[in-house]
């Protein structure tokens, strides 16, 4: 019992912080600095609890499962959430600021619970706890039509996806007779038709969470219309949590029905479905991004494409490629959060996030422009940045068993296309002169954070083993995800 309390201490601290923040919001709604500081302090306490009192174990029959890998992801999610908290000070409306930060904290609690569970019931609850605050946050800028519309679209598509997921989970439960992933993994033999339907519906539901075809339509609208800090969390934290739990469900619970998606070696399972989703997302994301004039929208299409790359790694479904997927999603989230940080600051200076608003950035704030360069080049996958190693590991591990050549060729070709639109943004930021003189607005905290994220992307590019190590070393991934698969 006490162990369970210690295991859930980080989440508990975040909930308490959210309540305190709401309290400050009621008594001193204008003290935005104090509200942000309280939120960050609570987040740091939660991080300290996570780092200083590591508990491993399985609590409440798999509802809460902690191991080094889950704790690493909890830490990453916490960090991404706090990054959004700092950006929120620049991009959320002044009214009801405390409520916005409390919602951010609740969403972070959902993500962290999601990273530490192996039970369908808890997965559904944590997913909803992640999504519901994000729906509200997307619609938070009430005076803006775009924000209300983004919130509604996010909510409608998200709820339909949640219903798909829930129906799929109910069918999986029906076949397995348990909501625990490890019990579900004991099923074997030919899959029941109900189970096939269940797996298909579950995959569709998760397509929303990680923004891939066929549930990708919301991404561009929400990224554009939502307050940018909310979009940053949706693009980074929510995606990391979704990919992590999808990996867990597929390999831990449904490992028997992997199948193969190789050219001419087709075997039924979830891998071929993922392969189709991956191929469609990579093509659609990269091609549609070419014609975008709003940087947030462009980042959304690039997010769809990156979701496709991640699914390629999941298709391969062996130890190295799963490690590569987890590595890549963390790198991607850090990079995207940083890029959104630059957008937050530019938006504050120029009042928009169109390509023209980035013109002259290299002159007016060279540091920011340099950071943007690092992020976009990393997203495009150019060495020596972290994004290159992420893609390199992902593609080589998918190729290692020689089956996914067609997918990798498609992805590499489309990646070349992506270079064009990233360079267009950089051309506007670095080459073109500013149309009018603008006074740089001071946003020291956000700027500091953006520089920090850029340095992290650079450092992980120079020393990727710092992250690959904890992801693949020792007992972590091998025991927890892969062993079940190999049995």
């Amino acid at each position, binding site marked *: 019992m006490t162990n369970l309390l210690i295991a859930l201490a980080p989440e508990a601290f975040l909930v308490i912080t959210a309540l305190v923040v709401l309290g400050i919001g009621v008594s001193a709604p204008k003290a935005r600095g104090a509200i942000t500081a309280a939120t960050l302090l609570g987040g740091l306490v939660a991080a300290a609890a996570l780092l200083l009192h590591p508990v491993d174990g399985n609590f409440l029959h798999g509802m809460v499962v902690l191991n080094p890998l889950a704790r690493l992801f909890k830490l990453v999610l916490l960090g991404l959430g706090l990054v959004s908290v700092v950006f929120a000070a620049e991009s959320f409306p002044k009214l009801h600021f405390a409520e916005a930060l409390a919602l951010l904290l609740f969403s972070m609690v959902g993500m962290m619970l999601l990273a530490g569970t192996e039970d369908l019931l808890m997965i559904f609850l944590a997913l*909803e706890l992640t999504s519901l605050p994000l729906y509200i946050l997307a*619609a938070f800028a009430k005076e803006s*039509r775009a924000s209300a519309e983004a919130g509604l679209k996010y*909510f*409608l598509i998200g709820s339909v996806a949640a219903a798909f997921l*829930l*129906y799929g989970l109910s069918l999986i*439960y029906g076949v397995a007779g348990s909501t625990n992933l490890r019990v579900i993994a004991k099923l074997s033999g030919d899959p029941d038709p109900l189970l096939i339907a269940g797996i298909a519906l579950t995959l569709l539901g998760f397509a929303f969470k990680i923004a891939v075809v066929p549930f990708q339509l919301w991404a561009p609208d929400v990224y554009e219309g939502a307050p940018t800090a909310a979009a940053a969390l949706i693009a980074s934290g929510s995606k990391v949590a979704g990919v992590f739990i999808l990996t867990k469900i597929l390999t831990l619970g449904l490992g028997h029905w992997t199948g193969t998606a190789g050219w001419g070696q087709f075997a039924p399972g979830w891998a071929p479905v993922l392969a189709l989703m991956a191929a469609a997302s990579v093509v659609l994301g990269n091609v549609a991004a070419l014609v975008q004039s709003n940087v947030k929208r462009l980042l959304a299409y690039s997010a769809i494409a990156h979701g496709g790359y991640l699914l390629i790694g999941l298709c391969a479904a062996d130890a190295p490629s799963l490690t590569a997927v987890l590595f890549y999603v963390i790198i991607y989230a850090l990079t995207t959060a940083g890029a959104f940080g630059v957008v937050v600051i530019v938006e504050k200076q120029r009042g928009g996030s169109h390509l023209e608003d980035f013109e002259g950035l290299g002159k007016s704030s060279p540091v920011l422009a340099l950071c943007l360069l690092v992020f976009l080049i990393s997203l495009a996958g150019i060495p020596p940045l972290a994004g290159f190693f992420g893609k390199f590991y992902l593609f080589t591990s998918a190729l290692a068993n020689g089956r996914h050549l067609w997918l990798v060729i498609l992805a590499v070709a489309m990646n070349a296309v992506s270079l064009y639109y990233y360079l267009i943004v950089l051309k506007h930021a670095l080459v073109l002169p500013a149309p009018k003189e603008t006074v740089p607005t001071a946003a020291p905290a956000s700027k500091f954070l953006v520089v920090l994220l850029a340095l992290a992307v650079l450092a992980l590019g120079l020393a990727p083993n710092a992250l690959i190590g904890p992801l693949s070393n020792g007992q972590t991934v091998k025991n927890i995800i892969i062993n079940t698969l190999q049995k």
Partner: protein
Amino acid sequence: MPTLAHYLYVSGALFSIGLLGVLLRRNILIIFMGLELMLNAANLSLVAFSRFHPGLDGLPGYNAQVLVFFIITVAAAEVAVGLAIIVALFRAKQTVHVEDLDTLKF
């Protein structure tokens, strides 16, 4: 005597009706009702599975029944959030029809 299959047919029908409502209707409030129907289809199938697949001790699978209670609660929370967003949208645009959602476009 209805069997598990009967319950699953009904639940599948409910899910399809809900999905069709979401896809075909243009009024956001009606779309909302379709969504609720989809969630309740999942509830029905969960309860049916728990009733017809007793555990080793002969008792129904209570996990699924507990999940159903959670789903009902989550659905209520979802409705609260959804209606709040619809009100915000109505204040900004004076409409509850999906074809008027045209501020954000490709």
